[in-house]
């Protein structure tokens, strides 16, 4: 492939942004004053309203470089910006410059970011090339080591060209880069205030200082996280709200009751079992589509009985996805044929159902594979489950009778979530179900999960051809060529039944009808930038 190709890709990705910038230039002087910090009374006057949103899942830390939870990123993303951000027009997911004003490729390994002028962190220090370098290095080689360090493993050198220009040199072309460098799900590209990191050290997660539309105010455990508007935010006219409170809750049905009685204005996550009630409630709006995720039944390929490929194939073809979607996912999910999910618009095949690729329910085929399995007697398998994930133990309970159909007696073992994690990571199970969520690129969907020594390859499926295909795809910047590589890789995984893939799930958010201007992005984000209250 030539240099021109990805320039074109990049230009396409940027086009929306260029259009917007032209408009901004028209407004002219007003923005400059706003950016230089002379109190823009107009911008302040626009900010009004105090939104209260229930956050039902665990918030671990507000440090973008250390969090492991999407529920935290939902809040972090209102405080910080990334070099890039995720945009969604209702059909396509794209990556746009955020703190960067322009993003250019000098060659296929060198990326140049020109930063916005005059952007300041909430502590007043400038967000310049040095701050970007500091943040990226904190992820790549900071101590303690960030769990997202692998996303920048290929980053070889960071050059500060001038105070507003930074050049990133990678050791290989890096197709995953837009995801790695965004401030949302990628996290590695979130820019934090170097002064604040130096001041707070490991306690930065309780004192986050970013450039985002909202400033962090306070965090009371099990109670609330408070944010207030950043009047000097670089996007003119934003934010519109004066204050935002994330009410930390454990019980979703209480949150629903609070929403219905008007005590709160929204929920960052609405569990599938409550969706019917929300739909019947006239004063709230539900936001949600199938997001970048897939759920599966994992099999332990390293030990008997599922070291037997034919038994695994029997499971893969023996799961009635339609019933699973209806019973375990309240009819809300969509059957999955392969892991690559619908929001990965460059890679997902809209005609996957008729393409003949992947796995689906075919009991005859399943029985034929079962007949070829080494163990023709009744197979006993430990199915480890926990009250975790979006639907708890419902999947295990739905799947167990299907396994019985093909002569596998699943012993359902209910363990507590922390034990579940430990046993999964230690491969102490025969069967379990899990979901990988908020993926926007096939690399994060496939490679770390299924490469031979992958950190998250808990089932231990091994295929070196698969490894090679994914490694090639990682450095292939042309989407069409990349897609072909991932399809081949997926076909290997599906055929050898490293997992039995089940469904792509919708992720729901709900806001009362007083809340205006929420822009839904299928990456489990709750960006309040443009939100206002009636």
């Amino acid at each position, binding site marked *: 492939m030539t240099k021109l190709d990805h320039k074109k890709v990049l230009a396409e990705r940027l086009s929306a942004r260029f259009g917007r910038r032209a408009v901004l230039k028209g407004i002219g002087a007003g923005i400059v004053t706003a950016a230089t910090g002379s109190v823009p009374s107009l911008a302040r006057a626009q900010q009004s309203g105090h939104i209260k949103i229930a956050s039902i899942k665990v918030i671990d830390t507000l440090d973008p470089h250390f969090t492991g939870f999407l529920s935290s990123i939902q809040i972090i993303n209102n405080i910080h910006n990334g070099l890039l951000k995720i945009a969604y027009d209702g059909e396509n997911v794209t990556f746009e410059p955020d703190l960067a004003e322009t993003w250019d490729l000098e060659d296929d390994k060198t990326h140049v970011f020109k930063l916005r002028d005059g952007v300041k962190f909430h502590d007043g220090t400038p967000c310049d090339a040095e701050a970007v370098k500091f943040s990226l290095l904190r992820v790549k080689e900071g101590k303690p080591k960030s769990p997202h360090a692998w996303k920048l493993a290929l980053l070889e050198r960071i050059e500060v060209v001038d105070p507003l220009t930074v050049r990133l040199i990678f050791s290989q072309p890096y197709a995953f880069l837009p995801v790695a460098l965004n401030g949302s799900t990628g996290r590695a590209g979130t820019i934090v205030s170097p002064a604040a990191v130096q001041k707070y050290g490991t306690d930065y997660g309780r004192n986050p200082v970013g450039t985002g539309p909202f400033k962090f105010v306070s965090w009371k455990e*099990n109670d609330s996280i408070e944010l207030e508007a950043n009047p000097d935010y670089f996007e003119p006219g934003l934010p519109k709200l004066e204050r935002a409170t994330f009410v930390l809750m454990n019980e979703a049905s209480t949150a629903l*009751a609070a929403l219905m009685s008007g005590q709160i204005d929204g929920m960052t996550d609405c569990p599938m079992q409550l969706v019917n009630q929300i739909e019947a409630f006239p004063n709230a709006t539900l936001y949600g589509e199938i997001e970048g995720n897939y759920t599966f039944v994992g099999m332990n390929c390293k030990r008997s009985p599922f070291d037997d490929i034919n038994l695994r194939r029997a499971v893969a073809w023996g799961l009635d996805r339609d019933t699973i979607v209806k019973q375990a996912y309240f009819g809300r999910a969509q059957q999955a044929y392969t892991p690559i999910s619908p929001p990965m618009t460059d890679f997902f095949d809209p005609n996957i159902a008729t393409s003949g690729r992947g796995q689906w329910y075919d009991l005859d085929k399943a029985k034929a594979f079962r007949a070829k399995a080494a163990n023709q007697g009744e197979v006993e398998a430990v199915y480890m489950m926990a009250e975790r994930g979006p639907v708890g133990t419902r999947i295990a309970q739905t799947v167990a009778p299907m396994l019985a159909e093909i002569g596998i007696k699943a012993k359902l073992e209910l363990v507590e979530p922390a034990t579940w994690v430990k046993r999964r990571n230690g491969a102490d199970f025969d069967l379990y179900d899990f979901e990988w969520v908020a993926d926007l690129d096939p690399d994060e969907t496939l490679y770390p999960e299924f490469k031979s020594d992958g950190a998250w390859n808990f089932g231990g499926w091994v295929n070196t051809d698969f490894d090679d295909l994914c490694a090639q795809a990682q450095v292939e910047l042309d989407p069409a060529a990349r897609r072909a590589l991932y399809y081949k890789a997926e076909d290997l995984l599906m055929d050898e039944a490293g997992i039995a893939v089940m469904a792509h799930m919708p992720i729901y958010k709900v806001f009362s009808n007083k809340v205006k201007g929420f822009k839904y992005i299928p990456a489990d984000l709750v960006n309040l930038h443009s939100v206002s209250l009636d």
Partner: protein
Amino acid sequence: MLLQALGKIAQTLVVLFFVSVASFGLLKLAPGDPIQIMLGSEYSQESYDSLKTELGLDQPFLVQYADWAGRFIQGDWGTSYVARAEIFTYAFKEALPVTLTLASFSLAFAILIGVPLGVLSAVKKDTIFDAGSAVLALTGTAFPSFLLGILLIWFFAVKLQLFPVMGYVSPWENFWLGIYHMILPGLTLSTYFIAMITRLTRATLIEVMEQPYITAARARGEPSWRVVWVHGVRNIAMPLVTILGLQLGVLLQGTVLTETVFNLPGIGQMLTSAVLGREYLVMQAGVMMTAALFIGVNLLVDLSYPFLDPRLRARK
């Protein structure tokens, strides 16, 4: 008397020491690993090891215990591993007052409703009223409090919009708003105790009413309300206080569910999230506080007997 009190306090400290060793050990024995939980799914072995050293979790058990105990006594309760919350502030200054407020409200409800109900049942023994209150009491004991909580929320907060669904407002900061927020959770948590106190009051009072001094009071021609409420009820104070002290554990247990349903940031919610996240230090602080509370209240119960019953006062 003073000596007796000092002895009991010394006993308390010994018990607290054993509680701390036992809970510290048990928590470590529970399967599950705080680092795996805090790192989520996406991490490398390197991040894991580096965090483990950072948090001191690679040290031997005894070193960890001694380190913790030494600091704990000095009021340095540490910070939570992941969220970096100052545990003393979180547990003692924030969570404990919430739970204490909730517990006091439910106790107050239980006594204010349970005692009169019990007295009336005793006085109107074997009437329809007595039977009705027996049914109520039985239902109250059998009904799971969290379910009652959800029902109360749906009826009083969502349908009628009379009370807030959830949340805590400190009565010290805003007295009436604080009470307003405590009515539903207080009622939820107190049902079991209302039932228990009603039954206890009834049983004790029936016995008391057969005592000679009651007959004597009646013979003196005192009005019957005075006979019951002054001469009779006074005698249920001791069994009542004893039972409340012993049942405090049940009450504290109940706060876990009540706090979850009404989203009150108290010790119950603190312990739940700490257990799920294997936040050892937070759990330990929670266990120590509840243990101290339980033992402390029972100590007070012991010390209160001489005040409640003159016969137990040391004679000069």
